[in-house]
């Protein structure tokens, strides 16, 4: 049984449509710790010891956030800067996170087509996520492909519900270690490992 830590960052969660449903589905699951960063640290004063302890207690870490300006909301950066200390997370003596899995679970307004060489955004999502990937690498963690919900501005409530169920399925699979290394390597998005619900409209 793998334990999952969701590091959730949404500055206006009360206005969110997508993340609200995602969180509703996974919040109460067994073996999952849901950690709401903006709610816990409204002043961005991150409790480093507590965060490190949480990391140690879990096997899979998820940065769940809206994909603001091709990146994460500010508190995630603050978290990275403060929690991943030298000689703790990285460096010659920093081996505390070795072997843990980590990935981003994000929502973005643009469609999947917009995120490629010829699209409006000119780069793919994994290319934009390079800083996260490299951070994981430096900390001896295994960086998994992201879970992405595209075109959020066009999604109906029903669509969002289906994507959220998919997210739930992914987390259940992760807690039971049902996904092989092979499978991780074969996909761009973790979404691709799961059966796409037929009713999704877009």
């Amino acid at each position: 049984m793998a334990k999952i830590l969701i590091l959730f960052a949404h500055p206006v969660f009360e206005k969110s449509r997508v993340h609200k449903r995602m969180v509703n589905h996974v919040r109460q699951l067994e073996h999952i710790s849901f950690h709401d960063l903006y709610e816990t640290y409204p002043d961005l004063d991150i409790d480093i010891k507590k965060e490190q302890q949480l990391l140690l207690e879990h096997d899979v870490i998820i940065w769940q956030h809206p994909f603001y300006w091709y990146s994460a909301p500010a508190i995630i950066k603050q978290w990275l800067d403060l929690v991943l200390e030298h000689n703790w997370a990285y460096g010659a003596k920093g081996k505390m996170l070795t072997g843990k899995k980590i990935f981003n679970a994000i929502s973005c307004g643009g469609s999947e087509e917009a995120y490629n060489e010829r699209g409006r955004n000119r780069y793919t999502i994994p290319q934009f996520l390079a800083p996260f990937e490299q951070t994981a690498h430096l900390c001896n963690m295994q960086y998994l492909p992201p879970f992405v919900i595209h075109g959020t501005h066009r999604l109906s409530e029903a669509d969002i519900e289906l994507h959220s169920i998919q997210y739930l399925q992914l987390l259940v699979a992760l807690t039971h270690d049902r996904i092989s290394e092979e499978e991780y390597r074969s996909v761009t998005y973790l979404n691709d490992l799961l059966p796409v619900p037929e009713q999704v409209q877009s």
Partner: protein
Amino acid sequence: MDKNSLFFQAFVYLSAAVVMVPLAKRIGLGSVLGYLLAGILIGPAILNFIGSEGHDLMHFAEFGVVMMLFVIGLELEPEILWKLRRSILGLGGLQVLVTTFIISTLSQLLFEISWQEGLALGLIIALSSTAIVLQTLNEKGLMKTSAGRHSFSVLLFQDIAVIPMLAFFPLLASHQPDIAASAVKETTWTAGLSGWMQTLIVFAAVLAIILSGKYLINPLLRIIAATRLREIFTASALLLVIAITLLMTQVGLSPALGTFLAGVVLANSEYRHELESDIEPFKGLLLGLFFIAVGASIDFNLVMQKPVLILGLVFIIMTIKGIVLLVLGRFFRMKLDQNMIFGFALSQMGEFGFVLLSFSLQEGVLKKEIIDVMIAVVAISMAVTPLVLLINEKIIQPRFGAKEKEDERESDKIDEKNPVIIAGFGHFGNTVGRFLRANGVKATFLDFDSERVELLRKMGFKVYYGDASRHDLLRAAGAEQAKIIVLALDNLEKRLEMIEIIKKHFPNLRILVRAENRFDAYQLMNAGMMHVYRETLDTSLRVGTDVLKMMGFRSYTVNRMARIFLKHDESTIKKLAAIKNKEEYVASAKEYIEEIEKVLESDRHDPELQNDKGWDEESLIADAGGVKPS
């Protein structure tokens, strides 16, 4: 013109006060001395404007003392009174006993009088003047120091002690009662009753005040407040005080004690501040009148006839009282400087002295010659008290203070001058200082409570004792080299005074000043302050923040809202402070309230005010032609 007409008399008293009090304040003598001088000026000795009503007036003006005790009671919650019990009973009781004993023994040795007369004189002289002492200490901002607290305790004990004294005096009678005087003796309900019935009625009256204060007056005030007629509330406040005064006089108790009790009972009432501010102007005017009457009652003819006797008596009595107080203060572990203030402040005789003296005449306790001399002595001793305190403050204390500072400097010599000075180490300055220290910034503290200073020094703070508004003390504390001064004193007057002194002598200092509320802040801003910190702003916003969080709001959102609100509030207060015209001010203050309401309303709907448009996806969703969030 009829010299006795009401309007002419009012004109004389008021103009004397209006001329003399600001003058006295300007040259640093304090308002009490101003009133006394005004009284002497219009009294029989100089201008002789006062008609025969001068003495009646004093009786009327004593009502100011009654009101003062009511206001003091309002500020004193029962718990505080309970905490002071040791000092009231111990210090107050010992002061009256020891002083009475010494004076009565001495007077029998020096003059040919009976032991009854001696005892009566001792009791009269033991009493000090509540009116003069409290008014003067208040004006100097000393009420919260240990000298202020102990003085208050002793005065309270004396005011209570007057009651048994009034009962006891007839037993000391050894002369023929003055028929003319006893004819005016008031008839009270208790007059013809037996001793235990009198006691019973007294207890019933006190109980009635406490119970009605708790269960009757508060609901009544609520009904009256609901009418929203300000003058009726003022009228009922006055009525309350007058009714208690009448009741107390009828049962033969001191009205001052009665109103004081009522004040204490009402100290926890929600109308406490309204009552206080309604009574305040009456109290102030009547007390002023009382001081004028004291000044006017000094019989300079008599003083001219027996200058050595009268002035000698004033000097000897005040010295004896002062020494007794100093010794007792020492015994009650007061620091020397506080003890000096305490001793000098209470060394005079008081308004109850007048009462007891005329009572003695009426009951035949003392001879008329003695009483005439004593009235002059009492009045003069009251008149010189503010002067004595001034001498203590300007001449004696600085020497003593300087001496202590020199000792201090021996050990402080190697210390570098600190870049920050904090004036006032109460709860406010305390927090600032601790925060600075936690971050390795050294600060110098100024405080005028010597016991607190002692404690701070023990904790390793660098503290200078004294009135922070004295520029020599500021200089000694390193104001010339420092960069920043924090004015954390809880007295607004003192803060304003300090601002002027710092602007004049130490323009190098940046001033950060504490303000109690919005109105303080206006005054401070008009005094040129840029950095004004309202005690009631950040804390109340924190409470609001927590309320919203408990209501289910997201904490990060609420935090942002609170910071936006804070900035908005700070910018409006700066705008409002710039308005000098009073009417304009009232209008804009009203506008401001409406504005706040508008802002509050729009905070929830208007993304512009939240400055969080970057996180608002409504327009993006609209562009995408997608579904609107429900």
